[in-house]
């Protein structure tokens, strides 16, 4: 019997686990995927929004601003990449100048500092690649970029270090509630808990409906992106938004925290919660709309395209509350600014839990976490020290991103370690570069195969090693 079962190992589920693991609780995180950060959390713009966009008075506004303020310190304590690069919202039509003013007022009500309105020329002075059509812009200095995988992994690993159990590759099929005890049925068995937190992303409505009779609908809103080579990474230094439309924040162009250039997302409501395919129309739209903001985006340097699904709720705001069923807490409809808000959502969920059961602080809580070393970011002296201790750090496996065998072995061998090529990629960046794993994947596959004691052909790109499939082959 657990005190709390969290369904979903994305940014929100892991943030909740991290927050709750400060207390004397038995916590378990369940996810149907074989790794943490496999859904919405892995495919998004990776922006820490300043908080000028959310409507004042909403949970989105409150948690966005709080999350944005927490993020820098968390990134230092938990060792994930974060950079405050600032943002601009571009206005292309003088008639829309009022909309910038409105955003500025929102910023002020929401308590966001460092927001001002500048002219098109001032904007171009700060970002020389901006289009000549830019008439004015909102400048937001506290906007930042983050590595969403590292962030989620950091939350998960910290929660794990503080005693949280993770049950991955386990799919919840039913939840029942009797005498204040939830029984969560999965494809691997039954688990019980006093409290269940639903952080199931685009599937949150399905999980919710297993318990509650109150309606909830989550619509997957697909966003397509194009990621460009690091050689294009300095095209802009800030995150460049366009004035929001009904369908979202428009196409943004931003450097990533690792120095690539990212353009996207489109916004398309779809039915299929698994449909993370890109489309020709979508990629064309990214190209066309992105080019409105920034001149000469080097689309010939695209190294990959991808899609993510935002979990759009039916209330216009985040749905974070104890449901009509006591002890069953929803954290649903976490669309943008969900990534930014995640740490604040974790706190907020913890508060809700404290209203249900009494929380008692742990004595031996660990508040830091050390990530996989990123060899390339070390000084030469540090690099040589590391190689002297462990020669596998002297062997480059991923030549494009300069990732060493030591880093890959660490990613595989650490708690909640990588079991797939994508798992290694998200922890180390091996395969994230311009050749997109062409050279390094056979070596990485061999290292994973060795760890799992399977053949190299059975190493998966994503998902779990599938024994059935191997039997089929034999």
């Amino acid at each position, binding site marked *: 019997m657990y005190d709390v079962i969290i369904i979903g190992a994305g940014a929100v589920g892991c943030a909740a686990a991290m927050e709750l693991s400060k207390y004397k609780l038995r916590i378990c995180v369940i996810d149907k995927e074989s790794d943490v950060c496999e859904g919405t959390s892995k495919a998004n713009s990776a922006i820490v929004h300043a908080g000028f966009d959310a409507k004042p008075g909403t949970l989105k506004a409150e948690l966005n601003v709080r999350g944005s303020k927490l993020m820098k310190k968390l990134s230092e304590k938990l060792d994930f990449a974060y950079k405050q690069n600032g943002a601009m919202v571009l206005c292309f039509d003088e008639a829309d100048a009022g909309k910038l003013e409105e955003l500025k007022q929102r910023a002020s009500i929401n308590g966001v500092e460092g927001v001002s309105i500048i002219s098109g020329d001032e904007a171009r002075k700060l970002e020389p690649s901006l289009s000549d059509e830019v008439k004015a812009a909102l400048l937001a200095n506290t906007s930042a970029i983050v590595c969403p995988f590292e962030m989620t992994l950091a939350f998960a690993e910290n929660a794990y270090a503080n005693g949280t159990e993770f049950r991955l590759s386990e799919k919840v099929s039913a939840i029942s509630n009797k005498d204040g005890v939830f029984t969560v049925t999965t494809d691997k068995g039954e688990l019980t808990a006093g409290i269940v937190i639903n952080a199931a992303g685009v599937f949150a409505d399905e999980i919710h409906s297993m318990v509650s009779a109150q309606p909830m609908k989550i619509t997957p809103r697909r966003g397509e992106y194009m990621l460009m080579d690091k050689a294009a990474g300095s095209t802009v230094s800030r995150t460049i938004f366009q004035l929001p439309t009904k369908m979202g924040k428009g196409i943004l162009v931003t450097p990533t925290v690792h120095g690539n250039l990212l353009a996207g997302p489109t916004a398309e409501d779809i039915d299929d919660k698994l449909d993370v395919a*890109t489309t020709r129309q979508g990629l064309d739209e990214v190209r066309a709309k992105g080019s409105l903001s920034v001149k000469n985006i080097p689309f010939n340097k695209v190294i990959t*395209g991808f899609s993510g699904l935002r979990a759009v709720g039916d209330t216009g705001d985040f749905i974070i509350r104890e449901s009509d069923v006591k002890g069953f807490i929803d954290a649903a409809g976490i669309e943008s600014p969900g990534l930014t808000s995640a740490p604040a959502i974790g706190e907020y969920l913890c508060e809700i839990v404290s209203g249900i059961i009494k929380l008692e602080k742990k004595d031996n809580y660990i508040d830091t976490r050390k990530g996989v070393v990123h060899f390339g970011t070390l000084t030469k002296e540090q690099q040589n020290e590391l190689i002297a201790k462990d020669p596998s750090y*002297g*062997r*480059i496996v991923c030549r494009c991103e300069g990732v060493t065998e030591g880093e890959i072995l660490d990613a595989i061998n650490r708690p909640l370690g990588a079991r797939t090529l994508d798992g290694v990629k998200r922890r180390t960046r091996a395969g994230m570069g*311009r050749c*997109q794993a062409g*050279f390094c994947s056979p070596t990485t596959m061999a290292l994973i195969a060795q760890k799992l004691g399977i053949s190299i*052909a059975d190493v998966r*790109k994503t998902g779990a090693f599938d024994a059935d499939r191997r039997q089929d082959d034999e």
Partner: protein
Amino acid sequence: MNKYDLIVIGGGPAGMAAALSAKKAGINDLLIVERDSVLGGILNQCIHNGFGLHTFKEELTGPEYAERYSDMVKQEEIPYELNTMVLSLEQTEDGLKAVTVISPKRGVQTLYAKAVILAMGCRERPRGALNIPGFRPQGVYTAGTAQKLVNLEGAKIGKQVVILGSGDIGLIMARRMTLEGAKVTAVAELMPYSSGLKRNIVQCLDDFGIPLLLSHTVVDIKGREKLEGVYIAKVDEKLRPIEGTEEYYPCDTLLLSCGLIPENELSLGAGIEIDPRTNGAFVDESLETNISGVFACGNVLHVHDLVDFVSEESSRAGASAAEYILSGDRQKGRVIDVNAGNGVRYTVPCRIDLNKTSELTHIRFRVTGVFKNTAIVVKSGDKELLRKRTQILVPSEMVDLLLKKEKLSEIDQSIDVYIEEVQK
């Protein structure tokens, strides 16, 4: 201890041939740096035959060809270091080249050399760069990665295969996968002609009844975790997919053979000027880049179709580097440009230093399309330096021209290389 006359970056066919030739020209203080755990580069995974017809007058497999060279390297006692990757290349104030390497043995260390030969080879264009829409499942590989998995790791990667792109590695892998028991249903090629060698189309596709769909491309990829199939559509003359022509091909494996890109990130970091047509360095006839004492050869300079051409070219780079080391940076003579004219995509070299030319100057290039019954013409102003009738020219086959020294001594302005229609 860390100072050398010559450092050769890369121990594949280009690097080994360059080092051997430099050694032969009297350079004893040299080092080959190779990131893999063996010499030979990509040849090690090319277990098919067809290598060495020009160089050794016999047909070898890739590993055999590599072994001939690595045996010579060992015989000549040319030092080489494996598992060693170059992180950066810079010039020092006193004209030396600083080569920072990493290896388990050395750690991160900077070596110095009078001259450097770039022989890092090329990489494959990945799916992302092709902007093929759809899912990103397991089962999509570049042809070379698949080749490594199948030939070196012994992995069975799939049973039903579609190949996009008809580059040579894709064609070779069509045959290889068939021999491994897989069914290759189609090879789709965006262009109206193949980018692979004729002999590979015959021996790898025709002999196995594998259809080559020219002017076709993959427009969608299905399967969330594992590849389930692809849609292939016809393209119009502007290479845009034609709506309504999509056909579904179930498959568990999609191999991409859509072009090779010389791997010049190191060169760019060193300030070497890169020709956007080849993605390789701009070089003169001695294969020297814009940085004196830095030479380039093999697939890092421009993508070759025959390893024999790589070896020959690299020998010249080795000899040029030796001459640079032994006689210092020679005074530059009159430098003339070599221009790619009608039908010629690029030329290597792109400039000729008339002071440095040897008895024969190679000009290598690829054509922009298929040309039947034409002539290759090399002209300088009004002076025709060379005219060569050809029955057929295709982009997949590199052309190698030789200009005699006496011809070059007559000229004083830039050279144009172009294809001329011939009246029948």
